């Protein structure tokens, strides 16, 4: 009883000492709960089609998350909570960095664990009371605006408890930083390391992969990858962000429970460190010498790798040379900086030789493993029987209609191409082709005059979906000729074409909306049908019928005459504008659609489609109308190469970088006969692909009069097999 009385009275005394943190907490939760609610409710009323029910849901969601939450948006409430946890721990444990204060507190007849739990209890009180009152006030605001429900009260309570998890997590992590250090500034730096190190490390790993792994695929979408996990789950901010995004959609509870477990581990670590922490550590940089060495090794290694990366990316010339310079410079610089932080004595700046050696070995090992791909990232190819699906996407050969604005990963995830020999051989050829391409690239970098005749290069994205449930993504850059046969086989693969062009297999043509056309008649897309125009059904059926005839021969040999863009309504909600709770709810209410923007070529053999288009007045000619062409400007880069060769042979010095547009004067053709000779050889840029075998020596700008009294300019290529004589003169 005496002990309990002492604990409570001690807690109240400690609380009085930290009353300013409580005041900050009250202000913060007053702003993020009731004030924010007043402002939000005003905004919700402006949402198109909003109902009272939706507003009640929004009110419920906004209690513990972000109703607008997108991938980039951190809930204000949880963000404030994490920051307050940091503030409270810094205030509560900063005494450990003052000898006078340590002498005072540790001379008192109170056990260290009691002091720790006393501080924890005060900090929890500093969160709970203002958060709970703020939540009640917010519910009051909700009731006044008629959006309060009993469910919202439960949500509010849950929100306060979820916040408590992240508050204590943030508190304990900060406390750990304060306990491991002996000076306030170092403690604050330590806190910054705990909260930000994983994000920095994630960025370094991503950048190293991009720098050194030729087949690396990060794209824009790496949220669920192991690397991004470092950033997401390595910091309380990241976890809080994840939870706030997912709670409103019914997920996030598991993450919260796991977070509570991690918080418990942090608290145990704190208590252990607190008991073991020597009082004389006050004033020293680090409280535990062994931990100090480990921290130094980790930080210097990371900093050296970062410096190596910066030096390599910032400077031209020998990339490897700058990389090594950056590593060595970073290693020395940060070793000295941390040594100075640990022992503020210039004479000690180079001490700690053993840790320096260990750090140097680590830096060499890590940088070499990336630079020389010691772990075989670029060579990665799982056993065939381990693969469930080996999916492939490339834009340069097939303009796949499947969400042309969506990311490759999303498109790869929609495919199911199996693990057949055809696909496995393609993967093998891609790995070998990528290696060959890199070797050629190295030769070109070493010798600026080096040229090869290997033709066009294209990127190909691959997903290895494994039986273990893991998915591995790679991006290969290869010469087209090296994989032409594989691609030709692939373009006859029905499954592949079905995955690539969903319009081939959709049951309901009505799902296709907002159809637009681009052709040689106009560079501006023209609307064919609106979503409400039922005549589109007939067009879609025709297009679908033609698409079903699509095969490798058509793709490889026919030159498209136009492109059709359309919106396709998808059954699930994966294509709504964002994945926020509000968007999903509006989708359920029919206010939002899950729509993918798709596109397909119109090939000359698409007779059904072309017939309808011609009925509608579109000529859909395979070449531009000579009547409308006022002039053709041809940039012939062979000429530039000749001049270059001439200058080289005569010892001429080229001081400027070769720039095609600057150095090549176009040949301009305005005569009707010339225009008529050139036109059949031209392929409009928007309709060109690698299959067409365009000639890279020419770039053509075509000026065509439109119906508005002005001229449109079309960029075109010249067909490799059909170079007009006039251009060879």
């Amino acid at each position, binding site marked *: 009883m005496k002990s309990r009385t002492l604990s409570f009275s001690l807690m109240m005394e400690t609380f009085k000492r930290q009353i300013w943190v409580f005041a900050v907490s009250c202000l913060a939760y007053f702003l993020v709960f009731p004030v924010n609610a007043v402002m939000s409710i005003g905004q919700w009323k402006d949402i198109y089609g909003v109902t009272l029910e939706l507003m009640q849901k929004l009110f419920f969601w906004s209690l513990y998350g972000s109703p607008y939450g997108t991938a980039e948006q951190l809930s204000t409430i949880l963000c404030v909570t994490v920051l307050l946890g940091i503030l409270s721990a810094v205030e509560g444990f900063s005494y450990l960095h003052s000898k006078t204060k*340590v002498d005072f507190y540790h001379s008192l007849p109170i056990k260290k664990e009691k002091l720790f739990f006393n501080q924890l209890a005060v900090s929890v009180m500093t969160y709970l009371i203002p958060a709970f009152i703020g939540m009640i006030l917010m519910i009051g605001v909700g009731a006044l605006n008629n959006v309060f429900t009993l469910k919202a009260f439960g949500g509010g309570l849950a929100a306060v408890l979820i916040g408590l998890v992240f508050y204590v997590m943030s508190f304990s992590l900060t406390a750990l930083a304060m306990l491991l250090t002996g000076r306030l500034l170092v403690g604050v730096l330590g806190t910054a390391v705990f909260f930000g190190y994983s994000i920095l490390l994630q960025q370094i790993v991503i950048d190293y992969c991009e720098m050194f792994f030729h087949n690396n695929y990060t794209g824009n979408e790496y949220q669920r990858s192991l690397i991004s996990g470092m950033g997401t789950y390595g910091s309380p901010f990241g976890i809080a962000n994840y939870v706030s995004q997912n709670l409103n959609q019914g997920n996030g509870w598991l993450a919260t429970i796991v977070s509570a477990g991690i918080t418990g581990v942090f608290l145990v670590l704190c208590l252990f460190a607190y008991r073991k922490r020597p009082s004389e550590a006050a004033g020293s940089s680090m409280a535990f010498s062994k931990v100090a060495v480990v921290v130094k090794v980790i930080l210097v290694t990371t900093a050296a790798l970062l410096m190596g990366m910066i030096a390599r990316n910032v400077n031209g010339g020998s990339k490897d040379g700058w990389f090594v310079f950056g590593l060595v410079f970073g290693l020395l610089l940060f070793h000295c900086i941390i040594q100075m932080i640990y022992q503020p004595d210039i004479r000690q700046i180079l001490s700690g030789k053993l840790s320096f050696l260990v750090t140097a070995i680590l830096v060499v090992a890590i940088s070499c493993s990336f630079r020389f791909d010691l772990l075989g990232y670029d060579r990665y190819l799982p056993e065939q029987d381990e693969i469930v699906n080996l999916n492939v996407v490339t834009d340069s050969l097939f303009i796949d209609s499947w969400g042309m604005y969506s990311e490759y990963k999303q498109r790869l995830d929609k495919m199911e191409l199996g693990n057949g020999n055809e696909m496995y051989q393609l993967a093998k050829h891609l790995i070998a082709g990528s290696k060959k391409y890199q070797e050629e690239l190295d030769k070109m970098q070493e010798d600026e005059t080096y040229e090869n005749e290997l033709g066009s290069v294209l990127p190909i994205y691959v997903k290895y979906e494994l039986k273990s449930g893991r998915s591995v993504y790679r991006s290969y850059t290869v010469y087209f000729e090296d994989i032409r046969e594989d691609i030709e086989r692939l373009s006859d693969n029905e499954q592949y074409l079905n995955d690539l062009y969903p319009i081939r297999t959709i049951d309901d043509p009505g799902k296709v909306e907002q159809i637009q056309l681009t052709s040689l008649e106009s560079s501006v897309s023209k609307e064919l049908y609106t979503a409400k125009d039922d005549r589109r059904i007939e067009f879609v059926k025709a297009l679908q019928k033609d698409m079903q005839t699509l095969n490798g021969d058509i793709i490889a040999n026919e030159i498209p005459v136009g492109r059709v863009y359309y919106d396709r309504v998808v059954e699930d909600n994966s294509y709504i504008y964002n994945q926020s709770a509000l968007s999903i709810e509006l989708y359920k209410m029919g206010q939002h659609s899950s729509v993918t923007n798709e596109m397909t070529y119109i090939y000359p053999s698409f007779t059904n489609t072309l017939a309808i288009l011609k009925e509608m007045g579109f000529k859909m000619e395979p070449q531009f109308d000579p009547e409308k062409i006022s002039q053709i400007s041809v940039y012939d880069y062979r000429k530039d190469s000749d001049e270059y060769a001439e200058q080289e042979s005569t010892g001429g010095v080229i001081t400027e970088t070769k720039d095609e547009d600057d150095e090549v004067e176009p040949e301009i053709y305005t005569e009707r006969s010339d225009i008529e000779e050139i036109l059949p050889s031209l392929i409009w840029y928007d309709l060109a692909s690698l299959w067409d075998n365009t000639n890279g020596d020419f770039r053509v700008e075509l000026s065509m009069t439109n119906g508005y009294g002005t001229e449109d300019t079309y960029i075109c290529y010249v067909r490799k097999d059909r170079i007009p004589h006039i251009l060879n003169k």
Partner: protein
Amino acid sequence: MIQIREVSKNFGDVKAVNNLTLDIREGEVFGLVGTNGAGKSTLLRMLSGILRQDKGEIQIDGQNVYEAEDTKSKIFYVSDEAYFFANSTPKEVMQYYVHVYPEFDTGRFHKMMMQFGLDEKRRIHTYSKGMKKQLSVILGLSANTKYLLCDETFDGLDPVMRQAVKSLFASEICSRDFTPVIASHNLRELEDICEHVGLLHEGGILLSKDLEEMKFHIHKVQCVVPDDMRETQLLKDLEVLQYHRQGSLLMITARGTRTEIMQRVEMAEPIFCEVIPLSLEEIFISETEVAGYEVKNLIF
């Protein structure tokens, strides 16, 4: 009783306390003297449970002190640089101590604050250094702990206040079970209050003795003897610690009671003779020189 057995404490490469063994008896004022860096503060911080010794054993009334609430509740540590809560008043600090020390005597606190002329409602940060020291001592005495560990407490106190504090200590010792341990580098400060003194040097204890016993058994003699032969004989007869000559005046510091020394001096038939009691400072200089230490480097 405080028992310190073979205790060592290192701070990195620095040996702050080195294999120290010492007993501090109950009910006496123990003076802990030594130069700056001798290890006095470290020893007191170990005694108060702030620091854990690397080696050895510290027991207070037979119990370990580090992380032992019951043992620590018998101790009040007055630091040389006392900490008070930011912007607090003595009354607020007192309220905190009331929660921590169950025997804290608030009445006594108020009384002493009044006696010392300190305003309980005034912010402590407006106090002078001496006033803060007084407040620390008042809090320490009001806590009613058995042991009061004072680190350089008398520094910054004016002579009047110093006497007042000494009187309070004396009064406490008479009225209850109270053992103050006072660390200082200033021997004069401790001379008229300490009953037992321990001299620390480089982390070790040079000596630990009752002050009266030391004063009783060591004296300084100033005399003039008629010839060299008698002088030589006198120096042989006395247990000489120090010996100086100024002209014909001999100044001898020797062990022994006043009577013993006078008997031997009179045998040398001195022309002039005077026995002077030594100050604590002089005793320590003599003792430490005997112990082989260069006194000038030790004290002052």
